[in-house]
């Protein structure tokens, strides 16, 4: 371990990206994500990487995809208004199966909202913000250290499943300062982009099984193929044949859903004897942890279920832990993950929601538990 350093969640995200081997970053400044761009502007040239500030978030997303097609591990970061602009080309990355990482440091919305206040209102946008059927991978760290870990993981998942991966940071974790140990290289897994062993003549960029991918050959390496946002067949060329369209669009979901167990990550705290389970993620999980401790001091059997992957949701784990127990979902929105929890558990749940720009306090969750 290197010696502990004090940093923000946004900075830890940058260190995670560097640890994962980021080769390209494109972005447009927006609070509360700007530190990510600023730090990368400083660090990227030192490691021979490419940093560019584009004219908006639409082009940042596009340039990120372009760089990924050139073979670089690529990332962009933004917040709500910019995340909205990224949706168009995020969908392109989904359709064309181009690996990349998109960070959204969530702030209060809709629209310009409260630029410096925390929120978790973009959970469903991360899932369904871009048009058309597709699956999403989205991760939400709750600490500065986890911001590092989740970023490394996001790059790995992007490369493994040839898909954009979203990091749902929030203003709390993004701007929170904690002392963390940055792990030594070699102590965490870094996945390089899979390489094809087919010759250029044999290579078909989308000739993949329902639950997998074909390695993406970088442009300029002798593999000449076509990438389009039009629905395409296994060769990558546009197709309107119903069977080919059906296969392609179903595969965008199945390649992720059939690997849910490989992707999902969650943590539980004091769930074994608990009769009440709080479900919380990101910055809100910090308050929920404190709530749990306060409740335990009072002799209440309260546990915490904390999904790290919001999409896909750790469905099986949630059922194992929370089915038929009292469940309280706490989040800084009007109940977005709560919808997913209800769908999975098929039971009534309780909600603690806050959308006034202030974090949810431990007492507010405790009040719900105690029926105050």
């Amino acid at each position, binding site marked *: 371990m290197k010696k502990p350093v004090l940093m923000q969640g946004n900075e830890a995200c940058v260190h995670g990206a560097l640890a994962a081997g980021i080769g390209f970053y494109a972005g447009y400044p927006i609070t509360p994500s700007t530190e990510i761009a600023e730090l990368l502007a400083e660090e990227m040239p*030192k490691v021979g990487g490419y940093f560019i500030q584009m004219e908006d978030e639409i082009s940042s997303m596009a340039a990120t995809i372009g760089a990924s097609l050139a073979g670089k591990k690529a990332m962009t970061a933004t917040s709500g208004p910019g995340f909205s602009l990224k949706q168009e080309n995020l969908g392109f990355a989904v359709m064309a199966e181009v690996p990349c990482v998109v960070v959204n440091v969530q702030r209060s919305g809709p629209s310009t909202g409260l630029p410096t206040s925390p929120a978790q209102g973009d959970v469903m946008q991360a899932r369904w913000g871009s048009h058309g059927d597709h699956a999403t991978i989205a991760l939400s760290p709750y600490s500065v250290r986890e911001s590092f870990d989740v970023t490394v993981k996001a790059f790995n998942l992007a490369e493994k499943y040839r898909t954009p991966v979203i990091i749902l940071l929030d203003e709390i974790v993004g701007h929170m300062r904690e002392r963390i140990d940055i792990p030594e290289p070699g102590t965490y897994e870094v996945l390089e982009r899979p390489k094809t062993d087919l010759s250029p003549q044999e290579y078909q960029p989308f000739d993949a099984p329902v639950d997998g991918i074909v390695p993406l050959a970088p442009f300029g390496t002798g593999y000449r193929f076509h990438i389009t946002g039009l629905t395409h067949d296994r060769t990558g060329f546009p197709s309107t044949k119903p069977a080919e369209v059906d296969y392609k669009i179903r595969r965008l979901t199945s390649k992720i859903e059939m690997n849910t167990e490989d992707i999902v990550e969650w943590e539980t705290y004091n769930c074994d004897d608990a009769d009440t389970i709080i479900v919380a993620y990101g910055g809100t999980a910090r308050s929920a942890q404190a709530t749990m401790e306060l409740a335990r001091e009072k002799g209440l059997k309260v546990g915490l279920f904390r999904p790290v992957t919001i999409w896909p949701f750790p469905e099986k784990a949630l059922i194992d832990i929370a089915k038929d127990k009292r469940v309280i979902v706490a989040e800084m929105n009007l109940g977005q993950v709560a919808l997913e929890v209800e769908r999975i558990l098929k039971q009534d749940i309780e909600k603690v929601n806050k959308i006034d720009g202030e974090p949810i306090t431990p007492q507010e969750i405790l009040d719900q538990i105690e029926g105050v």
Partner: protein
Amino acid sequence: MSNGRELLRLNKMPHIWCPGCGNGIITSQVLRAIQELEWDQDKTVIVSGIGCSSRAPGYLDFSTLHTTHGRALAFATGLKYANPELKVIVLTGDGDSAAIGGNHLIHACRRNIDITTIVFNNSIYGMTSGQYSPLTPTGSLATTAPYGNIDRTFDLSQLAVAAGATYVARTTTYHTNQLRDFIKKGMQNKGFSVIEAVTHCPTYFGRRNRMGGAVEMLNWQKDHAVPIRAAERLSEEELADKFIIGEFHNKPEPEYCERYAQLIANTKGQE
């Protein structure tokens, strides 16, 4: 020299373009330019947006990237910047580059990144069947301008010059040799180049504006295109229904990827 068939994806033919469309003329000059300059097929990337013209890359045997409407230059910027060894050509329509993609065009010009952009200017939105574009002449008819277009049209080449592109030229599908020549010069320019190729869309622009078929429209181009030198001697009145062709700008400036390479060289390994 071969006729360039080996640079085509012949198994993707027939193409989607209407009979008489000018897109094939521009595309063939792009191919011949690549051939004459002997660009490496494996190192050349052709990027496009959305529109009839933007379908061209699908027929060309290179690494090809058909992106979203208006965004081709933004994708191409990421590609080129991330691997400056790649040779990048962008094929785009007048709506693609001047309306939805106008901002990306301005900033690609400003950065002077080494990309050659060929604008297929058919004065109309072809793919969506004939709505007016920012380059539809004022007064022309379009499906969304049934009483005549009241918008002022804008001069994309002059915009590119003002925004900082280092090679800018305009010609037409009638002047094919000149078109190839300009494309080649754009490709050779180490910086951002814009070649505006005025082309004809008999189906959606010509028919509605009673300009006849492809041959009449090509003749119209011949009669209305005035070379820069000749234009200097004409009065404003004489130029009223004409447009100017030629090289508007050709002046090297520091190229974006090279500047960044210099920045990397200066900072690399610093702690």
